[in-house]
């Protein structure tokens, strides 16, 4: 649509958008401020936006099994890791070898190793254990879901008999059903197979819950790739599987990243399934829900610290992968 040219009109548009930004991030910003306050300040009936004594004690209480003053080296360590991640992301646009999937996977694996080994060197709190659970469940779900989803989505994109449509429609139907209808039976099944309260049960059930979405999305990305490409490879003597891995996957990589992001978010944000299917092996959303009941004012500052901690990975995802996120969210718009 053509642009509004009137300067007052344009100023109003910008003002409206700035208000939208404030409205969108205000709860997060407020939690961030609250998390830096002492509990007394956090419960002050005249809340302050500035002028309070900022400190990281709430984060120390949340993450470590020790006093706030010992938190400093870890805070520095976390900052170093975050700066390293940002530097890596910026450099990866400059050097080609750094943006290769292989390098990125090694970087992610290295980071995971650091997370897993950290409790060996520092006494971490229970919350860190929940964080590790979240990481394991998310990564497990992501890897399994995307690997079987790629193969299935590719087959559905290249097959045009009625069976393909039936599978797709059934998957769409399953996706729309309320989670409760699956979760309670999972609980029941979990009790009998003695998988209740394990991360394995969480991973396989989340893979199943996300599978319809994964194959639909991946299928639409594979459909954008012309058939002729792998046909050429197959004429050259490559098998169907070989041409898929060697020719199709490298082209479909952006689509796979987009789908991976949404699987990651679904697994990381899921509350109901870990809540019902675990007793001690909580994930982060379940852990934070325990701060929400009751009126205890002492919880306010630490709950804010927990909220911010849980949100930071998501903010990192938005910053680095905004393009893919927008593409994925708008994929209904493009495909109709």
């Amino acid at each position: 649509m053509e642009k509004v040219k009137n300067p007052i009109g344009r100023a109003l548009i910008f003002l409206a958008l700035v208000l939208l930004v404030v409205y969108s991030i205000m709860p997060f910003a407020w939690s961030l401020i609250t998390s830096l306050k002492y509990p007394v300040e956090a419960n002050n009936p005249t809340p302050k936006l500035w002028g309070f004594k900022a400190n990281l004690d709430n984060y120390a209480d949340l993450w470590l099994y020790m006093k706030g003053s010992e938190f400093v080296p870890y805070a520095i360590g976390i900052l170093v890791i975050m700066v390293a991640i940002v530097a890596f992301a910026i450099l990866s646009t400059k050097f080609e070898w750094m943006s290769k999937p292989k390098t990125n996977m090694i970087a992610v694996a290295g980071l995971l190793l650091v997370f897993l080994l950290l409790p060996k060197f520092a006494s971490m709190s229970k919350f860190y254990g929940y964080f590790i659970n979240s990481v394991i469940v998310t990564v497990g779900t992501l890897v399994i879901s995307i690997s079987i989803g790629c193969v299935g989505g590719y087959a559905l994109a290249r097959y045009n008999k009625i069976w393909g449509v039936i599978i797709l429609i059934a998957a769409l139907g399953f996706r729309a059903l309320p989670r409760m209808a699956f979760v309670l039976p999972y609980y029941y099944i979990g009790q009998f197979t003695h998988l209740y309260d394990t991360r394995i049960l969480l991973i396989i059930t989340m893979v199943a819950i996300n599978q319809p979405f994964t194959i639909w999305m991946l299928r639409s990305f594979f459909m954008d790739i012309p058939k002729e490409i792998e046909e050429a490879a197959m004429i050259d003597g490559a098998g169907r599987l070989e041409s898929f891995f060697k020719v199709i996957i490298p082209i479909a990589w952006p689509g796979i990243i987009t789908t991976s992001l949404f699987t990651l978010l679904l697994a990381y944000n899921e509350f109901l399934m870990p809540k019902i299917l675990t007793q001690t092996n909580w994930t982060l959303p379940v852990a934070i829900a325990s701060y929400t009941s009751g009126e205890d004012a002492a919880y306010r500052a630490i709950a804010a610290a927990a909220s911010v901690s849980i949100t930071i990975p998501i903010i990192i995802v938005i910053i680095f992968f905004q393009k893919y996120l927008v593409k994925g969210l708008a994929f209904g718009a493009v495909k109709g």
Partner: protein
Amino acid sequence: MNDKTFFTFVSPSVIIMVLLMVIPLITAIVLGFNFVTYSNLEEPQFVGLSNYIDMLTDPGFWSSFSFTFIYIVTVVPCSLLLGFGIAMLLDQVRVFRGFFIATALIPHIITPVVGALMYRTMFDRSGLYWYLLRAVFDYDFVMTTTSVRFLIITQGIWQVTPFAMITLFAGLQTLPKQLMEAATVDGATAVQKLWHIILPHLKSLFLFITLMGIMDAYRVLDQVLVMTKQNPLFNADTLMYYNYRVATMFGRLGKANAMSILTVLGIFVVLIPFLRVTYKQQMESR
């Protein structure tokens, strides 16, 4: 692609969906006819339809049903209108567009439990909105049965609007340029263009967002749990949250499964037309 390769390729997905979606659904149906609590998981007692009768005569079920209805008819249209408005505004700017989109996305992809908690903290005692309401309007915001519902609904709008915004914004990018230019040459006003070109162009997207919105709003649970502080006295249960409470707080697993089946039947009202449209599209495009 021949049948054999196709079935080999899709078998992992299909097997996992059959094992972990079809079988659980059957289990839910079976359990719905039984009296099951946490103490007799191993030997459920067959009771026929009594769980269903129990559920349909339960006032808690009907009150959660009516609140879910209210939630859907407020959140879905509001988020659609707001999202459309913001998409039109975003279409007007070039500078900072990425920044506006990125920040607007935050409410949508943040963990729902955390988003709800952060939102509620704003209205809690010594929260920012609580303070502003008191300072500007001299209104003391306290949690009551009405205000909790208000919080749940406004938080729902806050969370869902970015999805409508992004989808409609993407739709606006595909507007036929020549048509718009022709309309300008013919002297069409902005309202006429909106009514005769933009809205018809976005019609299918509006339908898509509405259907997705209804299905998502129908199963809202996490937010209610946070907003009500897990306190049933606030009487703001949605269907899914009431279902969750029947399963966890009352411990009536059989009854909860019966309720799940009822809600599954309920979503069919929206789902069947949606599936039919998709089926037709897929059959045509293959």
